[in-house]
């Protein structure tokens, strides 16, 4: 079999890329995609560990996470559309309404 650590590493790698994407990318759509990447990395971890512990809870939780990610993507897109209507931009660094 493939050793579980490999899956963990994959998951960690994807998570890190996702986090860096969230923190660094300018375009809010890319930030959304990075958030999806984070969630998928978590899914990989969940499934791999479910296989390791021979417990099905991990996989069930992964289904929940997928559902959740889908809903969140919908809401996120709705937010971006509302934001674009107000600010005419999708650049994260131009949205500084909370600045002092």
């Amino acid at each position, binding site marked *: 079999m493939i050793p579980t650590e490999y899956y963990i590493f994959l998951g960690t790698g994807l998570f890190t890329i996702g986090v860096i994407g969230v923190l660094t990318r300018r375009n809010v759509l890319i930030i959304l995609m990075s958030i999806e990447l984070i969630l998928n990395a978590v899914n990989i971890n969940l499934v791999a560990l479910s296989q390791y512990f021979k417990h099905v809870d991990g996989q069930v939780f992964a289904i929940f996470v997928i559902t959740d990610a889908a809903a969140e993507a919908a809401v996120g897109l709705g937010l971006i559309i509302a934001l674009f209507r107000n600010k005419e931009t999708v650049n994260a660094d131009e949205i500084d309404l*909370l*600045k002092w």
Partner: protein
Amino acid sequence: MLNFIWLIPVFPLLGAALQLFFGRRFSNRAVSAVSVGLPGLSFLWAVGCFAQFLRLSESYHHVSLYTWLPAGAFHLSNGSLVNHLDVKVGMQLDPLSCVMMLVVTGVGFLIHVYSIGYMGHEGGYYRFFGYLNLFVFFMLMLVLANNYVLMFVGWEGVGLCSYLLIGFYFDKKSAADAGKKAFIVNRIGDAGFILGLLLMFSVLGTARFVDLNKALASFAPEAGYGVLTAIALLLFVGATGKSAQFPLYVWLPDAMEGPTPVSALIHAATMVTAGVYMVARSSHLFRLAPNASLWVAVVGAFTAILAASIALTQNDIKRVLAYSTISQLGYMFMAAGVGAYWVAIFHLYTHAFFKALLFLGSGSVIHALSGEQDMRKMGGLKDKIPITYRTMLIGTLAIAGIPGFAGFFSKDEILWQVFSNGPALVYVVGVVTAGMTAFYMWRLMALTFYGESRVDAHAAVHIHESPRVMTIPLVALAAGSVLAGWIGVPKLWSMLPEGFRAFERWLAPALAEAAEQGAGHSAGLEFALMLLSVAVAGCGIALAWYLYQKKAPKTEPLEAAGWLYRGSLNKWKVDEAYDFLFVNGLAKGGGSALARFDNAVVDGGVNGAGWLTRFTSTISIWWDTWIIDGAVRLSSFLVKLSSYPVRILQTGSVQGYALVFVLGVAVVFGYYLTR
């Protein structure tokens, strides 16, 4: 009634208190009712006490009210220890104080009644009656006191009321100045009185009249009687000030600035007689100090003739009467000076009647002429104000010493006593003055009532007799001026019953023994001298009649006397001399020193207090601005300062916030990994 004798002064005191505190709200009628009713009540009470006293066998009656100045044991100047120095507020009713009390309340009451009419149209009606009642209170304290200290309270009080009443029209500068002058000159006399009183305390150990007389009877000092002369002279200085003798008479003519009832009551009948009363009270003392008594007589004589010489030429009707008062007071002191104390009091008593009458009559004339006081603008009033004319005629005859009227008996007795017991010069002065008195009084009558009218046209149309409230007192006083003398007829007229010589006998227990009837006490001589004084009076009147009525001149006939006339008209420049000697020096030097003191010290104090206030307020401002506000500003500054780093955290960049999340997670993660 006698035990409540203290009510006699308290009634007018009550009136004074009511008027002076509340009188402004009362109507004139209410003021009149209270302020005339209360002295009237005093008079009735006095009559009652007198009647009761007559039936007592003792020669004096004391009512002691309370101890005013308690004193411990005290060493006299001769070393002996006395224990009875306490000064009590007490009243003494003896023949002398009876006479005075009746005169003050009786004549005072009549003058109060008169004032209702005279002052009816003046402002300050309640104030006038308040002061007048206050005066009666103090005068009664003076005459009823049983010791010198209480008498001095009344003495000062009447001086105060005199000041208040002379300056009644206080917005008139001359009146205000006259009030000041009266009070200041009086004060000079009071200084002498106090010194005499203190000397009396230290040498004789008492100020009560009764105890004093006992102490004097047993007084036998090694150092001689000089100290008694000193006490007597000092007390006489006080009398000089109060009773307007030379040199302290100058206030009385100026006192005519006050309303006429004031002149009648205070400066004719009562206050000015306080000095004579005091000397009579001290008769035992003066008996033992012959040098002082001589001085009293001489000063009295000099004053009498000096004042009469000024009265000859004066044109203001009240000034003539003022100088006449000074002159008659001189007569009283002449009598006291030669030891005839009862005669002095007798003249005081008759003088009260006719002088008050003359003053009130002159007030009636002034009232009729709408305020005119200059006799050159009077004349021909005899038929227009008949009651005033007739009563003043009676008063004039009384003061001139025409037989039958009151003044004759008293003045004649004075002249006889002076002739018998005093220096011849004093007698001559007395006779000459009597002639002058008759002259200037008839001159007054001639200029005022007889001849052609010289009244100003617009005053002439208003000439009217005074209302009854003013003429009834005039009539009453005129009756007194006739009848009052008949209780002191000389021994010469022994064909009359004893009752007619009651006055001397009545006063005898209260006074020192009269002097021995000196040489020449023959009935014939006395009768001859009586005729002489009547003749002199008659000549005075005749001369005045001739000069002013027979010749009916257009100008003052006395002007023919040249410098004598001018000197007399200018009061012999005595006031000017005083101004030069004392007043200017004190006013300018003292005044400027006082002004400098006032500016430097008093104003300096006030300014200093203001500066201090401003200074403390400056400190207060600094504190408030820098410390208090500084604390507030400091706190806001600190908050602002601490906001800089915090502000940096609020970038508005969501990614930045997310970075912080991640870092936080990393920290927590690291912590748990390395635990």
